């Protein structure tokens, strides 16, 4: 085989940028490496081997990202002992330096330094509104996938039991556990309690929570920073949609699971509407006190209500908006979804296929994102 000998290239810029110890064999200039017979200097090798086990600073010239306060694993944040380390950091052995353990941005809460990862799995916090899927039914509880590091638990005692009164669970309820939630059902719930190992306990003891139906599920990955659902004031809202398709409920679970469904008047709202219509003015605030009158067996039904085609189309459009937001790395919150939805309706009106066009992939999605970021 003929061997082509390429002309010697200048030393790779990488080597020069890496010249933390210039006497090391690998960063010799090309002349020296030729004349030196190519042998690595073992003394030099020893020098590099005797470097302290943890180099305190990993400065390289490409640290323009410091302006963005981005840190990567193993990067020392500060060695000042006045700071406390938070999530995403650790203290290297034999030092006092707080070092980052994830790639992300630094956040500071008083004297606490933590690094928020660019992307990570959902970590539950008490009070979070989550959408989850039942994956396992046990004797007295369900196990719910909420996109966390472990399955969350939903005890039988933490749901609204049907039967008209707020009551304790009985053995009959335990035997009928599958009639409330079965494997594959979707629920909206709140995180009630956390365990030390990252496990969570959910509850659905409010009329806002419970089984989900009449809609579509979207899983938005990359929670905890990267283009996911962010904790905000309003995670659940009802919005009017175009084409006279009525109202649509949107639930943005903090865990990145989203539920978009047809809005169904709850018995409470119907009652309240009737009451105000009659001028009684008894603003029926649905709370734990009058809950018992309202909870009925229908709340554990898995049967969808009849949904008009127009409503289905608008639900699909909203789903497209959420997916487009995620694909283009925008955050998903009420403001963005509502704005994006109106933008999508405008785009559909302008498109060749008319207002029935719900496609928001590829260029349409980018166009949508551009319109939103331009606003």
């Amino acid at each position, binding site marked *: *085989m003929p*061997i*082509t*000998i*390429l002309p*010697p290239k200048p030393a790779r810029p*990488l*080597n020069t*940028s890496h010249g*933390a110890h210039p006497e090391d*064999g*690998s960063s010799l200039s090309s002349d020296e490496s030729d004349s030196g*017979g*190519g*042998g*690595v200097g073992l003394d030099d*090798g*020893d020098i*590099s081997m005797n470097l302290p086990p943890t180099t305190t600073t990993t400065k*390289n010239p*490409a640290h*323009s990202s*410091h*302006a*963005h*306060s*981005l840190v*990567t*694993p*193993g990067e020392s*944040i*500060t060695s000042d002992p006045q700071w406390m380390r938070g999530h995403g950091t*650790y203290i290297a052995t034999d030092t006092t330096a707080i070092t980052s*353990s*994830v*790639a992300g*941005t*630094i*956040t500071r809460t008083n004297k606490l*330094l933590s690094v*928020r990862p*660019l*992307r*990570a*799995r959902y970590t539950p916090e008490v009070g979070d509104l989550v959408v989850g899927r039942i994956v396992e039914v046990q004797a007295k509880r369900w196990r719910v*996938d909420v996109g966390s*590091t*472990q*399955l969350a638990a939903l005890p039988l005692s933490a749901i609204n039991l049907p039967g008209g009164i707020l009551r304790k669970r009985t053995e009959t309820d335990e035997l009928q556990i599958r009639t409330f939630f079965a494997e594959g059902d979707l629920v909206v719930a709140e995180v009630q309690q956390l365990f030390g*190992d*990252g*496990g969570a306990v959910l509850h659905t003891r409010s009329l806002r929570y419970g089984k989900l139906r009449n809609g579509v599920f979207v899983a938005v*990955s990359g929670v*905890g*920073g*990267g*283009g996911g659902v962010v904790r905000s004031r309003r995670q659940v809202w009802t919005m009017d949609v175009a084409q006279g398709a009525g109202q649509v409920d949107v639930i943005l679970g903090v865990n990145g699971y989203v539920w978009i469904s047809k809005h169904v008047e709850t018995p409470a709202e119907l009652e309240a509407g009737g009451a105000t219509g009659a001028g009684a003015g008894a603003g029926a605030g649905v709370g734990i006190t009058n809950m018992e009158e309202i909870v009925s067996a229908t709340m554990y039904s898995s049967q969808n209500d009849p949904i008009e085609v127009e409503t289905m189309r608008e639900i699909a459009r909203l789903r497209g908006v959420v997916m487009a937001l995620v*694909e283009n790395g*925008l*955050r998903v919150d009420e403001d963005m979804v509502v704005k994006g939805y109106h933008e999508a309706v405008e785009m559909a009106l302008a498109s060749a296929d008319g207002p029935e066009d719900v496609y928001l992939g590829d260029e349409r999605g980018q166009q949508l994102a551009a319109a939103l970021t331009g606003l």
Partner: protein
Amino acid sequence: MPLDTSTYNLALLRVDGRRWNELRRVHAQIRTQAAADGSSYLEMGHTKVMCVVTGPTEPGPRRGGAAAGGAGGGGVGSGGAGGKAEIVVGIVIAGFSSVDRKRYGRGDKRTLELASTVSNALAASLHTNLFPHSQINISLHVLSQDGSLLAALINAATLACVDAGIPMTDYVAACTAGSTSTYAANDEGADPLLDLNHQEEQELPGLTVATLGNSDRVAVLVCESRVQISRLEGMLAVGVDGCKQMREILDRVVREKGVRMIQEGTVEKGVGLGDIDMD
């Protein structure tokens, strides 16, 4: 085809035109699969590897999307009572990845050993104690092989774990080193070589070394060929130095992605390092 070592002595250039201390071209990307928790794609020369990380998730088969396919195994730590996440590595080597087409079975011993090595290497760096009762699935796919396979697998897995946001002490960066003449030649003046390709790996003694970040702490050292002990130190020194170069390359990939995400507004800006030091 024997390596023409005499040509090396003439021009000090290797078969692919590199010098003794040069890495091959490294190209890497993170977040290649939107649906995965973490994903990466890495090329070291013509060795091409894809990695998908799922987790930490509830342990058990087929939960959380991707079960470790292909040659599974290499689990480190116990998913249950150990109080640490289990790292399960699955490696699939494509039949078309090498020059001669070959089927790699599910229980291929070499693949299983690679999986267990990758698993052990990452266990040294990942903070698995933060995720008790859970499991981290690392699924690696080899698309093309041209030497330094283990190093490429480790590097790809590290990148994917960074993308998945799993806390770790530092990058685990790996690379290979060899020597310019065979064991039989017993050549005292043999030079060490950095980053072996397939041809060199077949004929020359070589080792794979992985270090923890910028330190000299060796996380993996695999040597499967006969080599004089006198050459080992030189090979190791060159390998460790290559690992540091590799860490910079991996770090740059992560930084570029992170800076882009910050600029796009996906991630909120944090506090500058300078601001911290000031007060």
